[in-house]
Every structure is written in structure tokens, then in C-alpha cells.
């Protein structure tokens, strides 16, 4: 088996793939799915380093992060029922809930506390105002409390000042759909396609061998010494040979279809992220497959054409190669 990378590394590749671009704001949607807590911790640690070194903004949504992972974040946004309950520094979140009347027990993870304190079922256990009877504090009330809390006021004060567009650099907002010119896009996609083709060269060698073997079988089945020209019976056999050739060359290209199909998820992702347009994906595949299918149909015709006894003119032979090549390409 060829050696690959681990699950955690894969997640980092997914992030790294976007980090190499010019984007400065990254939104990560539950990147810890399917990972254990120590791997999640490691990944978030790298993210933190990156945010601080490369000066980017990251919003990471996590479900039930471990306390040490939670401690890596600078700011917290707590969402409940579609509303922002808290948004601000991590250090001040407990203070806010204490001001409302909920206290996080000492041995409880803050992340778990935050998740439970907004739910109707688990809220009561954190009630800290002993002299007042507990009543359910709904999300809406929490949101209103946050608006009057100093962190909330600071946030709304910052938001109240409109952004002065004249201070921005004109190049700060991206207005081109793709990062590089069409020619460069084509070159990049072409070289990647060539690389992928080289990596899976085994399949192409295998397929060429396969069609050679099939051609050997076909030429011995439809041997021209046993097929007369000019009779109805012979004509049927020639038709059979042609049909068999057609089917073979066509189905030889079927494997290609499956291979392209498996690549589609990656293509959809990269297209949506504006890596390249659809034509830059399709054109290199199309162009690079032409020599392959030429070779395959060439071998087929070379082996079967004269042994089966089709029209002996050279131009007809070339016609045959091109015709089957067309079929291979269409597939």
C-alpha cells in the first residue's frame, strides 16, 4: 500500500490549501468532525499560531471542544437559537454569565458550561443567586443582557462607527473572478492533469495491454480466409467484426469515465472556491486523452484491419483509425 497522510494531517492540508491563497478571512465549519480531542487540539494550536504569525482572521465552529482546546481561542462567539448570546474576549464570558446569575462550577469545562447554560433543561443547575428563586432565562433575555453588558456595549460601539472606505487600499477588495490569467490557469491545470496521468500510468498501460489482447482474439475469430467478400453471409460477418471493434474501443474508454467521475467532488470544491473555471478542468483532460485513444485505436486497427480483411486501400485504413479514435474520444 502506498503511504498516505493521517486524518489530522489531512484536515491541515484542507486548511493549508486555502491558506496559500491571498484570503485573509477563513471560516472553518466543524473541522474537528471525526477527529479525537488531542488531534483537534493540535490542529487548533496550529491555527492559533497561524492567526498570530500570518495575521489572518479565523472563525472556527466547534462542537464540544476539550477545555485545553477552548483555551486556545482569543474570542468566543456563542450562538443559541440563531442569535448571538455572547461575542467577545474569552476571559470575559464567565463574568458575563455571572452578571446574569449563572456560575460555572470549578471542575466544569467552560465550553460545556456555555453549551448547557443556554438550554432550558440544563440551565437550572448553574443558578447562583441563592436569595432569588430560579426562573428560566431565555435566549432572548440573555441577548438583551449582553447588549447592556460592557463587552456588548463595546462591540456595538465599535460597530456604530461606519468604515471609511477612502482609507482602504484599492487592491484590498478582490474584483477579478480568478487569481491568474486564463493562459496561466490552463497551464496550471494542464500540468496537474499530466501529473495525475503519470501517477495513474498503470491504468493506461493496463488498458492498452487489454485492448491488444482483445485485438489478438478478434483477429483470430474474424480471420479473412474464412470470410468471403461479396456474399450476404460474409457481409454479416464483416458487420459483426465492425460492431465488435466499435464496442471494444468504446468500452475501453469507459474506465476513463469512472476515473473522471471520482474526481468530480474535488473539482466541484475547487470550482466553487474559484480555483479555476470548468473549462480549465475539462480541456486538459480532453487534450491529454487524445494521444491515448489514438494509440489504443491505432493498435486495434493495426492488428485487426488486414487480418480481418477490410478494404485494403491505405486511406480507408487511416479512416478506420480516426473513426475509432473519435469514438474513444467521445466516450
Amino acid at each position: 500500500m502506498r503511504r498516505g497522510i493521517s486524518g489530522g494531517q489531512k484536515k491541515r492540508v484542507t486548511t493549508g490549501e486555502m491558506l496559500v491563497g491571498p484570503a485573509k478571512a477563513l471560516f472553518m465549519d466543524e473541522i474537528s468532525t471525526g477527529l479525537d480531542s488531542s488531534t483537534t487540539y493540535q490542529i487548533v494550536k496550529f491555527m492559533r499560531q497561524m492567526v498570530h504569525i500570518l495575521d489572518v482572521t479565523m472563525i472556527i465552529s466547534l462542537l464540544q471542544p476539550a477545555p485545553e482546546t477552548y483555551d486556545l481561542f482569543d474570542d468566543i462567539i456563542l450562538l443559541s437559537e440563531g442569535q448571538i448570546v455572547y461575542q467577545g474576549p474569552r476571559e470575559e464570558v464567565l463574568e458575563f454569565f455571572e452578571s446574569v446569575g449563572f456560575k460555572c462550577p470549578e471542575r466544569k469545562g467552560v465550553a460545556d458550561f456555555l453549551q448547557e447554560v443556554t438550554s432550558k433543561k440544563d440551565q437550572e443547575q448553574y443558578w447562583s443567586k441563592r436569595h432569588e428563586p430560579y426562573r428560566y432565562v431565555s435566549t432572548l433575555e440573555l441577548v438583551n443582557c449582553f447588549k447592556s453588558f460592557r463587552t456588548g456595549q463595546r462591540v456595538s460601539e465599535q460597530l456604530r462607527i461606519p468604515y471609511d472606505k477612502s482609507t482602504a487600499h484599492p487592491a484590498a477588495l478582490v474584483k477579478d473572478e480568478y487569481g491568474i490569467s486564463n493562459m496561466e490557469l490552463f497551464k496550471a491545470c494542464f500540468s496537474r492533469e499530466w501529473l495525475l496521468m503519470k501517477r495513474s500510468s498503470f491504468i493506461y498501460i493496463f488498458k492498452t495491454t487489454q485492448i491488444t489482447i482483445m485485438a489478438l482474439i478478434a483477429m483470430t475469430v474474424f480471420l479473412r480466409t474464412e470470410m468471403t467478400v461479396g456474399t450476404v453471409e460474409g457481409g454479416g460477418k464483416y458487420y459483426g467484426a465492425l460492431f465488435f471493434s466499435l464496442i471494444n474501443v468504446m468500452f475501453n474508454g469507459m474506465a476513463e469515465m469512472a476515473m473522471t467521475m471520482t474526481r468530480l467532488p474535488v473539482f466541484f470544491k475547487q470550482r466553487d472556491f474559484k480555483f479555476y473555471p470548468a473549462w480549465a478542468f475539462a480541456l486538459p483532460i480532453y487534450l491529454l486523452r487524445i494521444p491515448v485513444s489514438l494509440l489504443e485505436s491505432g493498435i486495434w486497427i493495426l492488428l485487426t484491419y488486414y487480418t480481418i480483411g477490410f478494404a485494403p486501400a491505405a486511406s480507408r485504413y487511416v479512416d478506420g483509425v480516426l473513426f475509432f479514435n473519435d469514438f474513444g474520444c467521445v466516450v
Partner: protein
Amino acid sequence: MHEFVPQRTCAYISQHDLHHGEMTVRETLDFSGRCLGVGARYELLAELLRREKEAGIKPDPEIDAFMKAIAMEGQEASLVTDYVLKVCCLPSQLLSTISYIIQQPGGLLIKFYCNRFLEWISVLISRWVMT
């Protein structure tokens, strides 16, 4: 006129890891970096050079070379990739094979048979060489 394209200023990173398993980590990142381009880095560098010239500042040659290297477009391998690989602690030469196998259910079987076939051929060849 030209509308702002949000997909290119910010990036959404989904839960699914979709990569070509046949490419190494470095190749994956290089390709992505090549396609995404350098963004505003080139314009910013040009602006910086202009201001430096005006103020008569001579930039440090090493930093200058670095700035120019990361602002170059359409390179097959770039310094940015090196940097991201380093910060993410990723092995550059390994293939991202795992995702490939998960991606296609038949992939594992095909790979298995391919390898068996190759092994068989190499055993045959080594036998032939030995005799």
C-alpha cells in the same frame, strides 16, 4: 461594473477533506497556490517600492528578495507553500492517499490488485534476471 468576489477574499473550509490522493501534499498546496494567485501582494509591493523610492529608503536585500518572491504570480512552487507546510508541520512528500481511498469505495480493491499485479511482474523479472 466589476463586483467584489467574496469567495476570493475569504475562504470557507468544510468538514470534508477532498483531495486528489495521487498528489503529494506539496503538489496539492502548490497547485492551489498557483491557481489562487497572489492577490493584492503584487500591487502592495509595487506601492511599497514606489514609496521607498520617494523616501529614498534602500530595502534590506534579503527582505526585498522575499517580498518579490511571494508577489510573483504563476510559479510552480512558491515560498508561501514552503511556509504553510512548515507552519502546519506537514510532510511534503507523502501522498494524500487516505482521502482517495475513502472517496471511492472501489479504490481500495483496485489499488490492491494493481499492487499485486506489479509485485507479480517484479517477481517474474527478478527470477528471469537470476537465471
